[in-house]
């Protein structure tokens, strides 16, 4: 399959596929593995391009190009295959493993908590673990409590892991490429509702560095911060707010760990107000973490209490009505910003 060299408008799923494809072409040490990522092609008839390519189709066509040796369907053995990806990384490969839903972390935490993230440190720096774990986060699909989680706070609390979550197609390609090339384990979070989101994506090699947030919209009155889908909510809210005379600066975090504290603090220094939007559960979550960092390192610039729009501290409900009430959305962000801006310093 030819990959464009010029920018074009494609979906996030296509952008991810393109990143993997280009990297696999360039580096024979890259293998990909996961449940159904080839998808039915492993037994016979490899020539048949009807293989599933993963539940979201992200890896479609890769087994056709790279063969069964490098595109490995796995049994439902998350502990074994995520651990195998870690072990393969420690011995010279550069695996990309798919953990279908991030809630399945329950079945493989050890490989990440006690092995992948810690080997390099425990071995005195003498090992590297260049593994990328792609996983799905987020609600809105009516997938209920186990399949709609947003667990990057748990990942981020583990030192030694990098945690990435793009909000658009270009970043999806660029950040995934950076993740694959990174010598540390990276958890790459893809939002379940965003695979079909389209955006302009550079052709050929495209890298977005890990650990650097983007100022997605400059503004002066308030800093609005989101990541993955909530960055999109923040941008939408900023449009609405602009009409009402509030000029919001929007930061798209892009990376949860390591956290780009400088970009956040710089913005807060300018605006004096901060509203954080996050889909994860709030207790020991991402929103409060950032609020805490600013309360510690940017306290004197803050002119109003930090606003936070998060999910409540409860499992995700199934019912569409309840789930819509549960999730952050642009309207909630707009209200929170108005409240923050109404508060005197």
């Amino acid at each position, binding site marked *: 399959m030819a990959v464009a060299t010029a920018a074009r408008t494609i979906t996030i799923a296509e952008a991810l596929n393109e990143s993997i494809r280009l990297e696999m072409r360039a580096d024979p040490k890259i293998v990909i593995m996961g449940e*159904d990522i080839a998808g039915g092609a492993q*037994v016979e008839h490899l020539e048949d391009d009807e293989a599933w390519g993963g539940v979201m189709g992200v890896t479609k066509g890769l087994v056709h190009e790279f063969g069964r040796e490098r595109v490995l369907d796995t049994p439902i053995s998350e502990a074994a295959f995520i651990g195998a990806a870690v072990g393969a990384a420690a011995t010279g490969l550069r695996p990309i493993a798919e953990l279908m839903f991030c809630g399945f972390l329950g079945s493989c935490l050890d490989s990440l908590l006690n092995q992948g993230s810690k080997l390099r440190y425990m071995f005195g720096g003498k090992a590297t673990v260049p593994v990328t774990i792609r996983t799905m986060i987020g609600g809105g699909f009516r997938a209920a409590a186990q399949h709609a989680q947003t667990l990057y706070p748990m990942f981020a609390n583990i030192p030694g892991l990098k945690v990435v979550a793009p909000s658009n197609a270009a970043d999806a390609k660029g950040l995934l490429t950076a993740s694959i090339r990174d010598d540390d384990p990276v958890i790459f979070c893809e939002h379940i509702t965003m695979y079909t989101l389209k955006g302009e994506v550079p052709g050929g090699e495209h890298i977005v560095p890990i650990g650097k947030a983007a100022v997605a919209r400059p503004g002066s009155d308030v800093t609005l911060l989101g990541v993955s889908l909530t960055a999109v909510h923040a941008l939408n809210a900023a449009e609405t707010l602009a009409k009402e005379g509030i000029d919001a600066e929007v930061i798209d975090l892009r990376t949860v760990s390591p956290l780009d504290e400088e970009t956040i603090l710089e913005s807060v220094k300018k605006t004096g107000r901060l509203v954080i939007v996050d889909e994860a559960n709030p207790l020991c979550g991402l929103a409060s973490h950032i609020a805490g960092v600013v309360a510690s390192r940017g306290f004197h610039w803050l002119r109003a209490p930090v606003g936070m729009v998060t999910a409540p501290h409860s499992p995700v409900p199934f019912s569409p009505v*309840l789930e819509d009430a549960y999730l952050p959305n642009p309207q909630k962000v707009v209200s929170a910003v108005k409240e923050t801006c109404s508060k005197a310093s």
Partner: protein
Amino acid sequence: MNLSQYQLRSMYRTMVSIRTFEETVKQAFAKGHIPGFVHLYVGEEAIATGVCSALRPSDTITSTHRGHGHCIAKGCDMNSMMAEIYGKATGLCKGKGGSMHIADVGKGMLGANGIVGGGPPLACGAGLTSQVTGSGDVCACFFGDGACEQGTFHESANLAAIWNLPVIFVAENNGYAQSTPASYHCAIENIAERAASYGIPGAVVDGSDVFAVHEAAVEAVKRARAGQGPSLLECKTYRHHGHFEGDQQTYRMISTRAYPRARIPSGISGPWSPSTAGSPRRSWMPSTGRPGRPLKKHWPTPNPVPCPRWKRSPATSTSVTRS
């Protein structure tokens, strides 16, 4: 096996109820009325029916993402189930759980489960409750062939064995874990042979034969209730529809070339009807499709028999008693 007319009718009703329920869900999903993920039990009715008809109301079951059939067979109210699947406040779980989390603990239905391999540890817990309280209840733990590669199944089988828990592990081997054929994901042909790793009885039955399933389940339940510990029952079956609704099954166009066509569970489309059920064994035979590979049923006999060396084909069944 002696089944009363009442039992026969009730089993028939359960099988047809499941089938009807699922076809209704299928249509409603196609019309966009049902949110989220839905996995249908069509084609596997004989397993839930055969097992649950061997249970008493206070016994418990754990289930899977493909749980509607288990719920119905364990006596959950179908209206409340449907309301749950639609996400209504009147649903069995107030709309908070949905298809993958239907539960009715009062009926002994400990929940559908979105986590493959989530059930076996819970089943051990239910077995422990029975053991500690002396209730004599057993727990039937349903899980798919895909779940047999989850560590939780192995840990739980060993735990149930050493604690001698009244648990019946029921492997529903429908040949697939999503798009992945069991012939690929599982290193051996018969899941039931893994019983030997835990010194418990294992058996393979035809999962489209409700009488075969029932008979094996009765035996396993009897053992469990008598304090003789857990068993592993593998039911060979076939997934009629996609993994979930909406699944295009392109992968299946590939692999069904080598796979037997669907076998319709006996009793639903077969010639038998409850009013004529004199000799159920004969009339509930698989009524359509190629028979696929021959399945033998063996349940532990009191005397040791040599365990045949495993060969990938043809399939054999195991029979290992914990001594």
